């Protein structure tokens, strides 16, 4: 457990301090983008394509413009005048803002109507007449790669097929040899379907251009306001936008999960519209637009293989993946590897050889490919390895827990360099699994299952012992269009000892206003109630790369600790001066410096703060402030072991999660209550795609799952009672030993659930099932259909 070094009143690391942001949310005083109202504001609504692939023959805005309240219709031609009809994606691909001649996916933006009310704008959308000529649609990424498939990106010079990239890691020859020499090999095709983050708050923007000052102010649902500001300045510099005159305010955000990292065409159109009309413009997506057109997660078709000895020792891993990125590579992952951190696929096991390859493919679907709480393809990789381990256990007739225990990387092997090139910082995998087994009563469950099976009842137990990788990232490996992935904190101690902390990351519900205060409280002994944390306004907060991929604590959290330590260093000098001793004679305890051996001779941090402005040593600058930009030396590797127990209704195929024990290890914990909340939410968001959520398309590219009628988000009624426990293995390279926890549960939960369901049906010969495990899929498996 995280050691408590401060009193509850100070509320440093390890205290379940109540969330400072909650009173305003509970009282309805949150301030979201849609709450922003500006004088003379106009509303924008978007015309979207009914076709997945079509030529645009004409766009006629006449009727829309004649409708009362409609002020303007913006098309690709309008934007072309400013050369703003295309934009780069964060993966250095290109994307249409509004099309000139072709649409590439259903629900793509085709034109925008600007009007005096939302109603008039929506009416206007119906009145814009667009003539299309349908083109051949490419939906299946395997067909997209076949010779003769229509080349979709005719706009890209030199693009002769639909392949975006080929990435590989590991030693192919050594892996192939290990497979040849192995006693046992298994292989499994695994598809991780497209899903959507479906945040409670959809995306939106209020864009206001002051043509006199040349100032552009954007209230925007942005997980990365600073990076977005720079991108806007780089992309629209030629029309006079200059970075010091762009201010992005990312106010309260109702959930991000990666879906608010990309720059969507709607934002750019709204910016163009405020410049063109001279009025502030508000655009807030409807739920259906959000589900149909915004960035998705997953869509990985994997062929996964594992080689092992007869006794269960795992030897080699091989995974070949087709990654469906849709119309353009607009994934929002800043690593130098196009498949992100998929190299975590060797999981919690010390393979001797491994080889992974991923081919990115264009299809006529919306672009994206990272969003939804997955730290850059870790969810897919973990699903593959944790399924393979269970299949191997089944083939060898071994208990899946025993097989994992036999293979885990041992605690003394850390830091551990994996064959795919990652250096795991710390771990105790057996410890986590052992605790999970104890807590859930694993042996009793096995007995119960045996009895139930004899009575013909279907019960399953599934394990997942995942390793996560978060905290992007070291500047040598991570950037967004060149911007390195450091993060920042700026701390000001006021004369009365109260504190303003400004951080480069941005909260979408994670509780930064509380937890970052706790880091400062831990380091300086100032009560967390005296610390105000601000973020999300590019005019005031220090530069940072944003909150996603569980990176806030690993990166900005480290910066906050480092800035606090700079302040403590200066405070020590002041204390020595005030106490008339040398710095070496001082000891620190949270909240004060005292003379070694004479605890009464002390100066509190508040007294020191006052002195910093009133009575500081000569030659020292006044004030007590610090800034830190933290470039992490490595990523952090949270881990855990989950055990899931399911009961299955053999008549309908319905899966019921009866119990779910989650043991997580995210290193040192800042606020146990908030971590618990992250895990509960993450488990639910892991269960969702395992059992319910999917976005799919028919052959014409029509979307299924484009509204909440079909996109099945679980509610409290579908959610089981999560049981949680923790182990604590601090990160050795992180200033406060923390690792990040936002995505662990989303990554770890799905394979535990699938393993449990497959286990329940294993005596019927079932060896694998694809997610989501809909009742019909399970019913078919039970009935051998």
């Amino acid at each position, binding site marked *: 457990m995280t050691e408590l070094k401060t009193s509850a009143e100070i509320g440093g690391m390890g205290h379940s301090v109540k969330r400072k942001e909650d009173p305003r949310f509970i009282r309805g005083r949150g301030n979201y983008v849609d709450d922003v109202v500006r004088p003379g504001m106009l509303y924008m609504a978007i015309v979207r394509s009914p076709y997945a692939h079509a030529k645009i023959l004409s766009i006629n805005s006449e009727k829309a413009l004649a409708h009362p309240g409609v002020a303007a219709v913006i098309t690709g031609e309008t934007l072309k005048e400013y050369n703003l009809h295309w934009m780069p994606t964060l993966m250095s691909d290109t994307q249409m803002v509004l099309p000139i001649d072709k649409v590439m996916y259903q629900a793509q933006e085709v034109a925008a109507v600007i009007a005096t009310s939302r*109603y008039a704008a929506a*009416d206007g959308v*119906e009145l814009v007449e667009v003539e299309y000529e349908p083109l051949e649609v490419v939906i299946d990424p395997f067909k997209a790669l076949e010779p003769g498939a229509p080349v979709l990106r005719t706009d890209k010079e030199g693009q002769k097929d639909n392949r975006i990239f080929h990435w590989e890691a590991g030693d192919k020859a050594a892996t192939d040899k290990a497979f040849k020499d192995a006693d046992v090999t298994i292989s499994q095709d695994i598809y991780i379907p497209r899903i959507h983050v479906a945040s409670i708050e959809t995306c939106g923007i209020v864009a206001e251009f002051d043509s006199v000052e040349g100032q552009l102010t954007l209230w925007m649902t942005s997980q990365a306001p600073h990076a977005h500001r720079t991108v806007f300045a780089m992309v629209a510099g030629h029309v006079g936008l200059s970075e010091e005159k762009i201010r992005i305010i990312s106010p309260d955000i109702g959930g991000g999960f990666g879906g608010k990292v990309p720059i969507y065409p709607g934002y750019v159109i709204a910016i163009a519209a405020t410049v063109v009309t001279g009025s502030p413009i508000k655009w807030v997506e*409807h*739920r259906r637009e959000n589900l149909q057109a915004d960035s998705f997660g997953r869509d990985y078709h994997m062929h996964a293989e594992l080689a092992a000895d007869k006794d269960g020792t795992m030897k080699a891993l091989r995974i070949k993946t087709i990654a469906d990125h849709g119309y353009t590579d607009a994934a929002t992952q800043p690593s130098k590897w196009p498949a992100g951190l998929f190299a975590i696929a060797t999981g919690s096991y010390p393979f001797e050889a491994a080889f992974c390859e991923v081919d990115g493919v264009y299809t006529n679907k919306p672009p994206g490919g990272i969003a939804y709480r997955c730290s850059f393809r870790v969810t897919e990789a973990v699903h593959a390895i944790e399924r393979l381990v269970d299949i191997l256990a089944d083939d060898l007739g071994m208990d899946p827990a025993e097989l994992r225990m036999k293979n885990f990387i041992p605690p003394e092997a850390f830091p551990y360099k994996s064959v795919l090139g990652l250096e795991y910082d710390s771990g105790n995998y057996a410890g986590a699994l052992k605790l999970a087994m104890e807590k859930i009563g694993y042996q009793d469950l096995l007995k119960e299952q045996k009895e139930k099976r004899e009575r013909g009842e279907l019960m399953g137990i599934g394990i997942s012992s995942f390793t996560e990788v978060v905290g992007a990232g070291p500047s040598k490996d991570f950037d967004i269009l060149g911007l390195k992935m450091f993060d920042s904190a700026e701390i000001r101690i006021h004369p009365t000892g109260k504190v303003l902390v400004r951080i480069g990351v941005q909260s979408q519900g994670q509780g930064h206003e509380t937890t970052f205060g706790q880091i400062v409280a831990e380091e300086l002994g100032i009560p967390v109630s005296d610390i105000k944390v601000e973020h999300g306004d590019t005019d005031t907060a220090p530069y940072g790369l944003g909150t996603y991929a569980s990176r806030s604590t690993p990166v900005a959290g480290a910066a906050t600790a480092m800035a606090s330590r700079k302040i403590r260093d200066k405070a020590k000098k002041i204390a020595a001066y005030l106490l008339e001793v040398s710095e070496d004679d001082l000891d620190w305890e949270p909240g004060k410096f005292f003379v070694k051996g004479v605890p009464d001779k002390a100066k509190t941090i508040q007294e020191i703060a006052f002195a910093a402005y009133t009575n500081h040593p000569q030659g020292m600058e006044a004030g007590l402030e610090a800034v830190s930009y933290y470039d992490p030396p490595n990523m952090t590797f949270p881990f855990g072991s989950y055990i899931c127990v399911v009961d299955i209704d053999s008549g*309908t195929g319905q899966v019921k999660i009866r119990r779910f024990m989650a043991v997580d290890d995210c290193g040192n914990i800042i606020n146990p209550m908030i971590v618990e909340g992250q895990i509960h939410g993450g488990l639910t968001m892991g269960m969702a795609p395992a059992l319910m959520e999917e976005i799919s398309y028919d052959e014409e590219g029509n979307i299924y799952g484009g509204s909440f009628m079909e996109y099945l988000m679980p*509610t409290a009624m*579908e959610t089981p009672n999560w049981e949680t426990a923790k182990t604590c293995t601090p990160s050795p390279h992180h200033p406060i030993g923390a690792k990040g926890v936002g995505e662990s549960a989303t990554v770890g939960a799905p394979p535990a659930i699938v393993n449990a369901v497959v286990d329940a049906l294993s005596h019927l010969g079932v060896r694998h099932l694809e997610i989501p495990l809909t*009742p019909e899929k399970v*019913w078919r498996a039970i009935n051998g259909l």
Partner: protein
Amino acid sequence: MIPGTFEYHKPSTLDEAVALLASLGDDAKVLSGGQSLIPMMKFRLAEPANLVDINGLEGLDYIREADGYLTIGALTREAELDRSDLIKSKYPIIHDTAHVIADPQVRNLATIGGNLAHGDPANDHPATMVALGAEVVVFGPNGSRTIGIDDFFLGPLATALKANEILTEIRIPVPPANSGGAYIKFERKVGDFAIAAVAATVTLDGSGKCVKAGIGLTNVGPTPVRAKAAEEALIGNPLTDDNIATAGRLASEASQPVGDQRGSEEYKRAVVEVLTKRALHKAKARAEGGK
């Protein structure tokens, strides 16, 4: 998700409401709970030029027994059915039904009249009313008329209601002694329409033989489906596991599902069979005095 333009009318008497409907013609829609109509308008799947809000009409909100009938006023909310002691104790099948409709927020507004008048075979009350042999009372320019439930549903979103008529009451014959009923719905998640659902009612004689049976199926046909052959197979026979299994099979044969995101035709038929059996077992247990 933003509706088109419409005129809003709020009559205060039934006569006024019917007169309004008559004068506005096909361009008008009755608004009761709004939980089906408003979503359709927000998607612009329905764009009525006029809404006639009947929530101001008095005396359409009641649940009572009189003259051998349970009568329910059309404006009775699902939440009231869910809470009613009379319904819970004597008509648990209706409680089963109301309880699985949507979620508490929707149930606070949605009305039983709207649920039937909407004519959606995915709605839950229609099959229950088929199993209960209900009648529907409607009021139009020429006064009231009563429509048997088997004549009420004509097709998807089509009923025997005329554009100038308002559904005012649902009438259910008070079941004889030794009767029981149950509604079992299988849904993908709470608040979703059924993959399939089955309403079953049975009446037993002193020897345990089934003398009356009603079976209605939800969301497996263009209208709620009465599983007639299954009912007939039960009548005159004891409700043994075998007989119930036969009824399950016949109900499955009577269903007319089409494959969609909720499941294939084959799967839905299998679900109908399983649910019919479960609903009949539960109805039987209730007829015998159980819960």
